[in-house]
């Protein structure tokens, strides 16, 4: 079975390589010197060499880049759903190591340990970043990317936005264990508006800031690489 990501890699590579070659050829061509009279065979059709080069320019400068950007954005919007994609940024290691820790009591670790979320565990609780999320969440995602790649951040990282309870309620609301808790109904409107956070009562979702601060006793353990 071929994965979508492999198809994206093959098609993306073909688009980029063909695009680079065509753009190189188009860049060397002097369009003002092209003849409209000289005919070139193109399969069954015959076109002028000027028309042929203009079609090539359109393919190399418009079609191939658009195709390559669409394919590359598969990684941006789809492949980033995977936990390993989040793990590429080392500031995320504490969250991922803690999630895999069999003794941790954080919300992320309990969800993982009990198999409450079968795959894409990071994304399922942070789905605002995906295509379905709002513009503000996407702008936040780009800000995180810019801060990380330019090293303009400091540890421990701090979540600046407001976590939407919808990420929790999309699974929990309507389920018997959730509905059976009287206080959930008391604060239902506040939960819906994310005025009251689920974590107020259910504990930390990830290791505390103190634990993630460089120099803390837990820091080295939380930052260990997955290969160690």
């Amino acid at each position, binding site marked *: 079975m071929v994965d979508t990501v492999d198809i994206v890699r093959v098609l993306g590579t073909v688009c980029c390589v063909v695009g680079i070659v065509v*753009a190189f050829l188009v860049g060397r061509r002097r369009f003002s010197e092209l003849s409209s009279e000289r005919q070139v065979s193109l399969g069954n059709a015959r076109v002028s060499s000027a028309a042929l080069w203009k079609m090539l320019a359109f393919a190399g400068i418009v079609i191939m880049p658009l195709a390559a950007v669409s394919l590359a954005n598969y990684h941006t919007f789809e492949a980033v759903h995977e936990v390993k994609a989040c793990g590429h940024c080392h500031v995320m290691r504490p969250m991922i190591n803690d999630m895999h820790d069999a003794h941790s009591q954080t919300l992320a670790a309990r969800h993982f340990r009990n198999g409450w979320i079968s795959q894409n565990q990071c994304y399922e609780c942070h789905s605002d970043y995906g295509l379905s999320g709002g513009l503000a969440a996407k702008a936040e995602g780009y800000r995180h990317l810019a801060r990380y790649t330019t090293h303009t951040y400091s540890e421990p990282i701090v979540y600046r936005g407001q976590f939407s309870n919808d990420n929790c309620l999309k699974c929990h609301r309507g389920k018997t264990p959730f509905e059976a808790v009287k206080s959930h109904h008391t604060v239902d409107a506040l939960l819906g508006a994310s005025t009251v956070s689920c974590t107020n009562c259910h504990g930390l979702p990830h290791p505390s800031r103190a634990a993630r601060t460089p120099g803390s006793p837990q820091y080295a353990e939380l930052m260990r690489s997955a290969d160690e």
Partner: protein
Amino acid sequence: MSELRPQSWAVMLGLAISLSYILVPGPYEMGAFTFIAQPLLGLAIVSYVIEVVKELRSRGVA
């Protein structure tokens, strides 16, 4: 149509960065793709369209 050299260079650079991101989707490749390659490719396309419109106008088509 005048020469398309700047557009071609922008496309080649943009596609080279895109290729690195497609093959190795790490954070730095993603940053380069998002903040360098996409704007470069966008700029190349817009500037190509401007050249095409200029040529069409000079021929009295547009």
